[in-house]
């Protein structure tokens, strides 16, 4: 503020100086006009001054606003206004750089290798910046784990940088004595640091963080804890502590193993949604996709699913279960393998056999044919060493979670997977636990906590109210919150210290043991913020505590570099010059090898299993809380990102809400329909939720997503859905997210959910072609019904390029990363729940999800659909003003400037991929969110149609680059945004005119077909049929493709 005043003052001084420098008008008293003049009467002087109002040297405007020049100006302006009458658009000037900044060429993006970390998983990415601002996260193909794959939240991450609800400076909350009311004031970093250091020196310091995978961060936290004798607690909702506990019990090693789905030919998942939300879904999706491409050696996935997860949707065989059946499933497989089929050395172990047998026939009561267990067991055994059984995630956080993991570990040991598809030496990094949080709560209860520093995690949101975190917080003298916004927890902290966004700060990540990745800042901190690490360093420096390294460095960057020099490179580097290694790291983004792990099989502690008590059979409704791939646990900043809320749930296609998913039978039993509100009671907690009838659910299951119902996240996310963490139960000191008993009743109320897709059957039309592996191997291209097509018109001639896209439905998992990537690349508007309900979402690419089979055992298929760039485009002929035209390279081009908005093109499009700007969406985007726009793509005004352009800006960029380098364009050089974001490489783009291009080859493949091919719009997008490896001769649900021939 003071700076601002100074500036004003300067301005005034300048004016005075200018006035002083003006030539003085001398009055000659030798010749006088009147006595007044001669006497130099001041009144007369005024009239003389006013006489020549036109003098440019006079500053009289204030006194007389109708001075002549002003009058002329106004008259001219009003004349111009009255004759022109229309309001001209305001002139906006584009000002080039006065001085060329280093490394930045106007209009040319810069890329920085970096890492995106969401609390569970880290993935290597490229940050694309334009004129110094990050605009998109791009795929980093040489990232060691995700290999270029991205996910929904990483694609939306850029929007959280430009979130208008971020804190811009430190804040202090002043509370009344009871800490029930407060006042928030701004405070400077100096004062904050001084005050906090005083508090820290008093001892009793607890530092609560989320999962930290950054070795440098960990070092800072360790140094800080050492300096202030602080206790570090790491806690996450998605902690994966259950896996570590299971590992510890079974193998005496507390690790979160690195699962190798790429080496597994037979995968059984018991509620572990490894393609959606479990541990490292992007990495696992990448791994999984590799096993699905070669049909002679195709993997099989069996999913036991208690909600409808992405993993269930993509599984070859999906069995619906309820959470209390998870353990039974594992035991049933173990019984079949060890007891019935006598596999492995454990078959001789009487203790094991009797324990397994104590469950009776575990497979009874599961929704599957008895033969299926035999088949699964056989497949597992046949692929031993190359199979994998996984369990976990929120859905598996039941009372019997520990037993489940132990039995799963037992199975993996039986199947000799340990050390092969389960790597424990190269393990994943996870330090977060729920038990740590429980211990912290106890310490707060005992008033041991004097100062609590919380970093990013949000216990006030993610812990149920009955955990009494809010009340216990009153026992803490000083609460410091380090985070990016005034969220639910920060609201009750004394000091709220704004943290840098991850794109504003250096960091790193240990992806798996010995594999490190760097996180580079891509923009100078936009506000008065600093990284958590620097804050801790400052405190240590000021208090003069902790090891030398935390006090000696001025910035976290220096600390981090030093840490890499002393700790990381000596472990993984090839030795030699540090600078050289460092530069190489910045170039490649990572260091270390994933594959050189020589893990032997660990010995399974049989007692860990046989000591387990057999659980009692559960009856009645059961709760399933699950996290979504859009929001994750919802506790961070992602809940304020419009792109994520507007992204339809991959399965249910619902946006902007959470809801209670129940099966059709359950809905009939309760006499409710979609949008009816039911009241569910779990223990003492009651909650009203709208119903979504979800095919393929177990009839006792009520599945509800967590992460919604934020109250203090920002303008976008506040009040979206309900906070279902309130339904979490604590039983025997354990957080129970699933399997809790539920009472349900219908309330008769209605609450409308917004769905982007309301019809779920393909109506017997050939839309997604699906075949079993056997069917495909027997019939090859005859799995596709082909229509004879002829035309009287020879069609367009494409002499240069002819762009085409091939989409492999067999690879697509429906994860929807492409939708968000497209939104980011093409500046696509978010319209909100009300308008999605009216069918006005703007996505250029959408993922159609159809169900096949019965509503009880519905199987899902996915199909990304974007503009098909038809050769005989129906939209082109009907536009009266030629606003959509055909390019010489086969693109269907939309000319926004020419469009008057008749919407005829949309009506005539058989794929309905065109989106209309019903209102002026772009205008409503607040600053600084507009900085997230891609400058290569224009924003659209109201009243124009828009649609997928095949990323024409990228095509131009690629062509220009080749031209400048005077060489032909290489195949694969141009990649669309959806293509690069895809973790399974399902999308291939290229020149169909080049017979050697990948896309041209795929177009000729036997699985290739066009959507509505018989309609002969001749689309430039072709799909590749989906193959299910379920061992069946035929897709059970396939109904004959009707008519049309």
């Amino acid at each position, binding site marked *: 503020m003071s700076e601002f005043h100074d500036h004003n003052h300067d301005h005034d001084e300048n004016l005075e100086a200018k006035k002083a420098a003006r030539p003085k008008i001398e009055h000659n008293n030798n010749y006088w006009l009147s006595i007044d003049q001669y006497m130099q009467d001041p009144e007369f002087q005024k009239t003389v001054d006013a006489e020549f109002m036109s003098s440019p040297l006079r500053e009289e405007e204030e006194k007389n606003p109708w001075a002549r020049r002003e009058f002329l100006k106004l008259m001219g302006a009003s004349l111009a206004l009255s004759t022109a009458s229309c309001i001209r658009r305001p002139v906006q000037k584009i000002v080039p750089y006065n001085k060329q900044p280093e490394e930045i060429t106007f209009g040319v993006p810069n890329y920085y290798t970096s890492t995106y970390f969401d609390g569970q998983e880290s993935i290597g990415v490229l940050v694309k910046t334009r004129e110094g601002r990050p605009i998109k996260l791009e795929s980093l193909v040489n990232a060691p784990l995700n290999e270029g794959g991205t996910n929904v939240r990483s694609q939306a991450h850029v929007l959280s940088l430009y979130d208008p609800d971020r804190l811009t400076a430190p804040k202090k909350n002043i509370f009344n004595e009871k800490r029930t009311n407060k006042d928030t004031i701004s405070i400077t970093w100096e004062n904050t640091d001084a005050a906090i250091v005083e508090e820290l020196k008093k001892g009793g310091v607890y530092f609560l963080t989320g999962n930290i995978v950054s070795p440098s961060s960990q070092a800072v936290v360790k140094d800080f804890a050492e300096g202030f004798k602080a206790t570090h607690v790491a806690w996450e909702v998605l902690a994966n502590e259950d896996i570590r506990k299971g590992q510890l019990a079974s193998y005496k090693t507390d690790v979160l193993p690195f699962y190798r789905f790429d080496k597994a030919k037979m995968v059984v998942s018991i509620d572990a949604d490894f393609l959606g939300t479990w541990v490292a879904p992007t990495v696992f999706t990448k791994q999984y996709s590799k096993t699905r491409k070669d049909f002679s050696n195709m993997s099989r996935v069996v999913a036991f699913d208690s909600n409808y997860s992405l993993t269930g949707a993509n599984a070859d065989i999906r069995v619906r279960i309820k959470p209390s059946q998870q353990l039974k499933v594992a035991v049933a497989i173990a019984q079949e393998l060890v007891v019935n089929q006598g596999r492995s050395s454990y078959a001789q172990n009487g203790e094991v056999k009797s324990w397994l047998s104590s469950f009776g026939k575990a497979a009874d009561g599961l929704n599957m044919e008895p033969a299926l267990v035999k088949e699964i067991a056989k497949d597992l055994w046949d692929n031993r060493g190359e199979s994998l059984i996984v369990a976990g995630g929120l859905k598996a956080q039941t009372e019997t979670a520990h037993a489940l993991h132990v039995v799963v570990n037992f199975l993996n040991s039986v199947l000799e997977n340990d050390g092969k598809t389960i790597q424990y030496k190269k393990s994943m990094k996870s330090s977060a636990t729920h038990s740590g949080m429980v211990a912290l709560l106890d310490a707060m209860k005992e008033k041991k906590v004097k100062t609590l520093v919380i970093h990013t995690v949000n216990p006030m949101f993610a812990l149920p109210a009955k955990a009494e975190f809010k009340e216990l917080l009153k026992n803490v003298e000083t609460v410091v919150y380090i985070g990016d916004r005034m969220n639910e927890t920060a609201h009750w902290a004394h000091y709220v210290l704004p943290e840098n966004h991850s794109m504003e700060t250096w960091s790193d990540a240990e992806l798996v043991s010995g594999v490190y990745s760097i996180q580079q800042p891509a923009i100078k901190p936009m506000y008065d913020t600093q990284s958590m690490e620097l804050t801790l360093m400052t405190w240590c420096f000021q208090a003069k505590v902790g090891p030398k390294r935390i006090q000696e460095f001025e910035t976290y960057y220096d600390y981090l570099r030093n840490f890499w020099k002393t700790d990381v490179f000596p472990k993984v580097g090839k030795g030699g010059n540090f600078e050289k290694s460092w530069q190489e790291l910045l170039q490649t983004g990572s260091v270390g090898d994933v594959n050189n792990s020589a893990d032997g099989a660990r010995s399974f502690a049989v007692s860990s299993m046989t000591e387990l008590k057999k659980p009692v059979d559960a009856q009645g409704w059961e709760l399933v809380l699950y996290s979504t791939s859009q929001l994750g646990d919802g506790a961070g900043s992602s809940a304020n990102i419009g792109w994520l809320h507007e992204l339809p749930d991959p399965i249910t296609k619902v946006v902007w809400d959470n809801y209670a998913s129940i099966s059709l039978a359950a809905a009939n039993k309760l006499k409710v329909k979609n949008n009816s509100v039911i009241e569910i009671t779990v223990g003492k907690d009651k909650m009203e939720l709208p119903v979504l009838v979800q095919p393929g659910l177990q009839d006792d299951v009520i599945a509800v997503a967590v992460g919604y119902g934020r109250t203090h996240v920002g303008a976008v996310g506040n009040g979206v859905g309900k906070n279902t963490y309130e339904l979490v139960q604590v039983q025997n000191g354990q957080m129970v997210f699933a399997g809790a008993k539920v009472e349900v009743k219908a309330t008769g109320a209605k609450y409308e959910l917004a769905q982007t*897709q*309301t*019809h*779920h*059957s*393909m*109506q*017997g*039309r050939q*839309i997604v072609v699906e075949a079993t592996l056997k069917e495909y191997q027997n019939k090859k291209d005859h799995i596709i019904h082909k229509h004879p097509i002829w035309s009287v018109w020879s069609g367009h001639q494409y002499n240069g390029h002819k762009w085409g896209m091939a989409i492999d439905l067999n690879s697509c998992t429906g994860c929807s990363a492409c939708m968000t990537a497209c939104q980011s690349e093409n500046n696509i508007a978010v319209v909100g729940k009300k*308008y999605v*309900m*009216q*069918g*006005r*979402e703007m996505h250029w690419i959408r993922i*159609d*999800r*159809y169900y096949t089979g019965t509503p009880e055992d519905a199987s899902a298929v996915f*199909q990304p*659909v974007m503009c098909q760039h038809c050769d005989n485009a*129906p939209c082109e*002929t*009907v*536009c*009266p*003003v*030629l606003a959509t035209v055909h390019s010489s390279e086969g693109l269907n081009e939309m000319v926004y400037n*020419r*469009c*008057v*908005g*008749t*919407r*005829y093109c*949309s*009506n*005539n499009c*058989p*794929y*309905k991929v*065109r*989106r*209309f*700007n*019903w*209102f*002026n969406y772009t205008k409503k985007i607040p600053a600084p969110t507009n900085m997230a726009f891609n400058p290569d793509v224009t924003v659209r*005004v*109201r*009243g*124009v*149609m828009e649609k997928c352009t095949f990323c024409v800006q990228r095509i131009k960029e690629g062509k220009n680059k080749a031209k400048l380098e005077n060489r032909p364009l290489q195949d694969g050089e141009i990649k669309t945004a959806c293509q690069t974001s895809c973790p399974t490489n399902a999308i291939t783009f290229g020149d169909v005119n080049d017979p050697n291009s990948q896309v041209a080859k795929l177009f000729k493949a036997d699985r290739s077909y066009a*959507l*509505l091919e018989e*309609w002969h719009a001749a689309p430039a997008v072709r799909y590749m049929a989906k193959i299910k490896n379920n061992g069946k001769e035929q897709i059970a649900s396939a109904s004959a493709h*009707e*008519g*049309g*021939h």
Partner: protein
Amino acid sequence: MMKRNQLILGDKTLKDITDDICQPVETLPGKGWVGMFLGAKTLLLFYIFVLGMIVANGMGLLGVNHPNGWGTMIITFVFWIGIGHAGTLISAILFLFRQKWRTSVARTAEAMTVFAVMTAGLFPLLHTGRPWLDFWLFPYPNQRGPLWVNFRSPLLWDVFAVSTYATVSMVFWYVGLVPDFATLKDRAKNKIRRMIYGILSLGWRGTARNWSHYEMVYLILAGLSTPLVLSVHTIVSFDFAVSNLPGWHTTIFPPYFVAGAIFSGFAMVVTLMTLVRIGFPQFKDYITLDHMEVMNKIIMTTGLMVGYAYASEFFVAWYSGNPYERYVFMNRAGIPGTSGDYAWSYWIMVTCNVIIPQIFWMKWARRSIPVMFIVSIFVNIGMWFERFVITITSLHNDFLPSNWGNYAWSFWDGALLVGSFGMFLTLFLLYLRVFPAISIAEIKPVLPVGRNDHKGGH
């Protein structure tokens, strides 16, 4: 040869006719008219407000969405354009066929046409996303290249068809009015009135030369208008028929649309004429029950024609074997296995357009003013729903089921539909007071003067 009743009742003299017809124009309006006018005008002001809101805020106010790119505006456009058809049919085609009964209703039917086309014409212009750029729809030399319009687009044909139709029907109407304006001028009792009607009558003196030229021009214009009656709605139907969509892409559309247009147009003429007969009782001698009966016969006939078209669409959908088209029609009727979300609108349409007009098989119904009024209202409702059914049921469930979605009907849709009647009625009520509602010049030649009434024929 069938014996015809007299066209004009009450043994009128030529003066009586002039006096009767000029009376509404030359006297102050009664309470009934003022009341109706104030109502219509308020509705018109509301309509202007609604249109203003839509232009200011965007098409998003209406229920149009994805996949229903067209909605109330296009439905109501086709509805009003259809209504306009009766006027030209009566004035041009019946003129050429020497149907003398047309004279009593021709003027008002033509006025209805002009106002209906004016009301309709606003919709395609305002239903665009950026109505301020609508002039781009017209081919004119420009500095953008020059950039021309797309002559392949049926919407462009529509622009030509509707604008031609509007122009020709307006000129035709005006030319017919010229001798009557001269009559009004001659009867004017004050200067201003005399001047206004004098200008409007274009210097008509009633000479033989005048009459000779007039008759020729009228005949030529009738000849010009006749193909337009068929072409306008044919081209409007092309908006649908030329596109790809199952339910739109059918060859039956042009005749089906024309029949439907005549059907709805006559229904509107009947509605208005019953009202005119109530408002101006002296017109009962000119617009007799015989006139009404003839029109009711046409309503019944065209009603059967659209009924045939509805049935034929179903047959063709089945016969084509095209699964998409089959689905659309089954869905329209709400046959189980389809979503049937809009089956109610289909059955409203069938009831109003096919079933209810069957009452006109009975002579008493054809000649009962209350019955024909109610039936005509039902036909108007049914014909609006016909366009609703065509537009929405085809769009809302098309090729890919993932796109399927219902029309998001909003307050503004209803306001727009109701408001459009405000515009039409305001214009029509004003017309009744300033223009002679029956052609004086054409009525006089069809008087039975000099004919032997008892020997029939003419």
